[in-house]
Every structure is written in C-alpha cells, then in structure tokens.
C-alpha cells in the first residue's frame, strides 16, 4: 500500500517539469510559433537555476534564475523568428544545440556539487491522511503550482479576451493584423512567457527533482514536452494528463527494474516514451479535434503588410 502511495508521489514529481514546460510550449504554439529549442532552454535554465540555488541558498532563487534564463533565451529566439523571420525549425534546432553545449560549458564547475539539505514538504492536516497523505499531499509546492498553472492557462485561453487574441494570432496572423492587433508583439510575448515556463521546469529538474547538475541531465524531456503539445491537441488539461502518464510509466519501470523483472533495462527505459506516444495518439485520433485545435499558422512566418 505505501509502495503504491510512493509510486503516485514519485509520478507527480516526475510529471511536473514536463507539465510546466509543455504548457509554456503550448502558449508559444497557440500564437503560431514552434520552439524546437525547448531542450536547450531547459538545459540552460537548469544550470542557471542550480547555480543560483547553490550560491543563493534558496530554491526559489533557483526558480527565478531558471525563469529569467529561459525567458532570455526565448527572447533571443523570438527576436530571430518573429522580427527577422528566420526559419522557426532551423532556429529552434540551433537553440537546442547551443543550449546543450553552452550549459555543459557553464556548468562544469557545478558537476558533483551538492545543494543544501532538502526540506520535507507536507500540506497541514491533509498530509497526515493515510495513503492520500504520502501519495498526494507531501509534494514540493511546485507540483501544486503546475496544476494551478494548467487551470490558469485553460481559463486564459478559453475565458479571456487576451487568450482569444492569442488564439486568433495563431489561427490567422494576417486577419489579426488586419483587425489591428500587434501580431509580432503578441507572438514575442507568448514566446518569452513560454520560455520562462520552460525555465521554471528546467530549474525544477536541477534544484528539486535530481537535485544536482549533470551535463545533458534534461535527457530529452524538452522533446517529450514538444510532443505532448501536439498529442494533447493544444489543450492544457491534456498536457497535464500526458505529463503524469509519462512520469507514471517512468516510475513504474524503475520500480519493476528494482524488483528484478527479467527484461532488458534499455527496453524498460523506452517504455515511458512509447506509452505516452501511444496513449496520446489514441486520444488525438479524431481529425476534427486536430483541425479545430491546431493553430493554423503554426511554424509559418508572418510578414505584416505583405
């Protein structure tokens, strides 16, 4: 019983960075910008967050530094693709490659360093509940923040005018421009916000989840987050679902490996990726869903007045 509770708890923790990063990328993509640099942004913010937490002694300082680093990288990316109309795919891949090299270079002094003692977290009263307490209510606050962010993003996209404008820009930047909206400014704002969220996710990985800095420690989570946005048909709640699914299978396969199940470990390590893709493909099978939710201008450059 307590084993299951621990598995659930570990799942939520593992899914959290994916959910936050996926949400940031979803905002980008709803505005029509595909940021393939997610992996690089996560790495840079992971090392920035670790460094800040290491020197400042506060994990919240780490999150702030991660968000700032992510936003800064995203701002450069946004300036390139939105204002200079460079190719989004090529620029994004460049950011990913740059991020992995740059983070390794900057982080060389932090390899093997320890952060201060990790504090235990528990929600008062709820944390004392049998089973539910250890499963759900003894998490790092950022786990709950991620859930709240998903709700907030849903509300923003579907219940506010600003969200409507964002969706409109992603759907048809030409029409939005014709109606007098500043397409480039809105797109840049979405990219920077998305970058900041990716930054928080990166910092969570290095400051809370692992918690240490190793070169390449993001281990493809940036790419998984990108895939999540597509399979979630650009709906925030499904991002959360996909992230927890990925986290859950990751934990389950580790658990099974520890139990000594007779399967090659490489095959087990592959499971979370396969499971996430299969389940989300099944969810997003409906072509009408894709058509209604996919931002029509995704990945396409916009030239005002052309």
């Amino acid at each position, binding site marked *: 019983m307590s084993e299951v509770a621990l598995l659930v708890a570990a799942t939520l923790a593992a899914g959290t960075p994916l959910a936050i990063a996926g949400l940031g990328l979803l905002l980008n993509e709803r505005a029509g910008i595909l940021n393939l640099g997610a992996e690089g942004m996560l790495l840079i913010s992971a090392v920035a967050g670790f460094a800040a937490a290491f020197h400042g002694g506060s994990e919240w300082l780490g999150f702030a530094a991660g968000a700032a680093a992510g936003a800064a990288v995203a701002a450069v990316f946004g300036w390139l693709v939105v204002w200079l109309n460079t190719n989004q795919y090529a620029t994004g891949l460049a950011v990913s490659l740059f991020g992995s090299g740059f983070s390794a270079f900057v982080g060389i002094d932090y390899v093997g360093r320890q952060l201060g003692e990790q504090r235990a977290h528990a929600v008062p009263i709820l944390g004392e509940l049998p089973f539910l307490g250890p499963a759900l209510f003894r998490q790092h606050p950022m786990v709950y923040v991620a859930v709240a962010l998903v709700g907030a993003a849903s509300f923003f996209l579907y219940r506010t*005018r600003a969200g*409507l*404008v964002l*969706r*409109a820009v992603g*759907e*048809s930047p*030409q*029409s*939005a*421009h*014709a*109606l*007098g*909206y*500043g397409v480039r400014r809105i797109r840049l704002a979405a990219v920077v916000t998305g970058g900041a969220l990716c930054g928080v996710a990166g910092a969570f990985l290095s400051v809370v989840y692992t918690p240490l800095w190793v070169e390449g420690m993001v281990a493809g989570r940036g790419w998984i987050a990108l895939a999540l946005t597509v399979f979630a048909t650009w709906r925030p709640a499904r991002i959360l679902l996909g992230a927890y699914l990925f986290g859950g299978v990751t934990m389950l396969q580790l658990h099974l490996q520890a139990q000594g199940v007779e399967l090659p470990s490489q095959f087990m390590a592959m499971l979370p990726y396969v499971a996430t893709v299969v389940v989300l493909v099944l969810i997003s099978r409906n072509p009408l869903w894709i*058509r*209604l*939710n996919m931002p*029509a201008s995704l990945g396409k450059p916009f030239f*005002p*007045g052309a």
Partner: protein
Amino acid sequence: MTAPRLELRHVTKRYGDVVANDDVALAVAPGEIHAILGENGAGKSTLMKIVYGAVAPDAGELLWDGAPADIRSPHDARALGIAMVFQHFSLFDSLTVAENVWLGLSRTVSLREVVEGIRGKAAEYGLDLDPHRPVHVLSVGERQRVEIVRALLANPRLLILDEPTAVLTPQAADKLFETLRKLAATGCSILYISHKLHEIVALCHQCTVLRGGRVVASCDPARESTASLSRLMIGAEPPRLERRPASAGAIALSTRELTLESHDRFGVALEDVSLDVRAGEIVGIAGVSGNGQQELLAALSGEDPRADAGAIQLFGQPIGRVGAAARRKRGLHFVPEERLGRGAVPALSLANNMLLTRKEALRAFGWIDRAALRDQASGVLRRYWVKAAGPSAAARSLSGGNLQKYIVGRELDAVPKVLVVAQPTWGVDVGAASQIRAELVALRDAGCAVLVVSEELEELFALADRLHVIAKGRLSPSIPTAEATVEQIGEWMSGLWAGGPGQAAALAGGSP
C-alpha cells in the same frame, strides 16, 4: 462646404513592375456612398488596402476630415473610425461568430454584450446569424454577414465594402442597400467597391472609375446609365450573351432520392434530392447560401463519397461511392465555390495547379513534361484572358476574378461531358463574367451537360434552361427558365413550393 471625410491625393503603389495605383485622387464627403468601379486588376482592392492601412503607398497623401492622416496600420485606421468588409474574408475559422466579432471591437465590451449586439444588429438589418456557431461551418454568404455585422458594431465613420453583394440573393442585396442607406443617413461615409453597374446606379451618390490603376472618370451615377458606366470601366462595349434554345439529349447526370446526413452537426442534411441534367442543357440551382448547396456539391463532385451508390448516376452508371478523380476520368468535371484551397493551391504556380485536374502533361511513370505543362497553362491564360505574370505565377498572386477565370478555363478546356459549377462568376467583373457565361453556353451547345449552382438569380436566369431551387436540403421541382419569374423563384427560396419545406411549416401553423 465641410471638408471631405476622406481625401486621397496622388496615391501611387507599385508591386515590382506592376503599377497597381497610379496618381489616384478621390474625395468622399460625410454621409456619401462613393462607388469605386473597375475591372479585376484595376487596382480597387489595393487602393482600399491603402486607405485601411494594410498596405503602405509608395507616394501620395491621405487627408482625414481635411487634416493629413498618417495611416500606417489597420489599427490606426480603426482608431480614426474606418471599418472594412473584406472580399477575402478575414475571419478565424476555429472561433465562433461572436468571438470573431468580439476581436474586431474595443476591449471594453464583454462577450455577452457582443452576442446581444450581434442579435440586435442582425434583427435591425435582417441579417440572419447565430452568434454561437463556429465560423468554419458557415457558407460564403453567411461569413460575409459576420463581416458586415462586425463592421457595423464598431459604429464606423467610414465603411469600406469590397464586392459585398457578390454572394447575396437579390432580396438580401436590397436589404443590404437599405442598411447602407440608413447608415449613410447617420453621416457615415461609405466606399463601395463593385463592378455591378446596376447596384452603383441604384445605390451610390458618387462614382470613381479606375482602369489600369488610374482614375479615368469621376461621375454622378444617377446621371449615367449602366451602359455608359460599362464603357468607362472597360473602355469598350460590353459583350452580350448570345444563346439559342437548348436541344437536350440523353440524361447525363442524375440523382435519385439522394438523402445524406451532413458531416457537420451544423450542416444541412440532403433529403430526397432528385435531379436530372441532360446532355446539351444547362440546369441551374438557386437558393440562399447555407441551404444544402455545399453538401449537394460535395456529393456530386465526389468529395463526399458516402451517398448510396445508385443515388447518383453518371450516364446510367452508379457513382455514389466513387471518388472525385474517378468521376473526372468518366467525364465529370467540377468548379468549386472556394477558389483558394479547393479550386487551386495558393502557393503553387498556375502551371502546377493545372495538374490538379488535368493529366495531359504527365508522361510515363508520372514524369511531368514541364514544357507541355507551361504551354497548356499559357493556353488557358490566353484563351480566357487571365491577367497574370505568366504560367509560373503563384495562384494566390492573382486577383479573385482572374483566378476564377483560370479555374473555370482549366475545366472548360478539358472538354468535359458533364460540368458542375458553383458560383461561376463570383467576384468576376462584367467583361469576364459574360465571357465565362458565353463559354458555358458554348460548352452546352457542344453537347455537355452543365449544372450551375449559384446564389445570383440574374446569372441563373441568363444561363440556365431549367431552374431548381434548394431550400433546407430539399430540391424544388424544375421549371423552364422561360416560364419562371424572379418572384416565384424568390418564394421557392423560402421553401414555398408544393410539398416544399416552407409549405409544410406553413401548413403546420409555423412561419415560413
């Protein structure tokens, strides 16, 4: 004398070597309905985009209420009180009608107020519109209503309309004119772009005629006739449609009690549609947009191959479940309503667009004979007087009317045995429209069975030998055009034929 609401001086715009607007001057007084008349490619749309700030002019100045105005973006234009209804609609497909309208308004109103505003304006001006439907299920005519209501809700001081009646029924167009007159009476100026001469004579106070990007005349339409305006616009006499009575032969295309649920839950289901088109005749289907035309066209073209096999027959063969390409191979060609996206791929060259429905330039193993393809495309460009830079010009670089000429030309050139055409002359100017109609008649005389689905009654009366009306997914009996009157067809459009959907409602005590 008050200053004009809007004045243009020496406005010039070049696209590469093409001069779209050359030293254009015009002035619009407050409360004036000012027509901009010109053929396709005369520079009307470019000029309006300049006024609306969507395109920057190379030279010249704009004055607003007598003061120089620097309109750099649509945002600036809207701040001045300029609203525009576009020819290519600027709507967001995945959003609802109300959300689309909301995006065009100031941010102080709530979505609920917008829904009420839409209902109010729609009732006031007789524009039927459901605020909660998503835009992607709307027909062209309905989309235009969204654009017009959106413009009206902004309470503009200058309203620009680009070919607004192209997809409206005569009654709806008359209603629109009432709307515009009311609006002008409140002091709003209107720029009315059109090439429909009788509309300009009936509606407008002042008319500026463009030809080849230059102003060739500025006149009072009330003192002109449609013939004199036409001469100003094309610089020559308009061609007349010559036609002889049809000599109808064997049945070529027919539907038998075609019943089909729509793909879309907001679509119209077809019910018991039975129809015959014989070789050597033109059959017309009239109706207000959104009454099942899209569904019927999709079933006939093969885009929607869900009908019972025997419900649609081509030369007696069941084709209900056969795809579009196979139907084309058997001689059924199709000109869709949407030029960009259905009729042509916007980013591809005209020559490559040829390959969508024509296989003459294909060699063994699917190799493309590029020289033959270019010749084929050039042939269509020449024969149908399409204004384009050449066969390598991208489809989207053509004006709407020119692209329509190209698409119709592409299908006519294939010498089809059966041709299904939707809105053959939508947004096409007078000269080109009569040319397209003459070609359709010539095709009929050569023995082709032609089915024309159009929302323009005038066109159907000019073209068709027999008329049907479609209302709420049901088809009226046919009537020889010579015996039909506009009033009767107008009533049928509301479903009021014996056994029609309107008739049933009237008998049941409901309003038609």
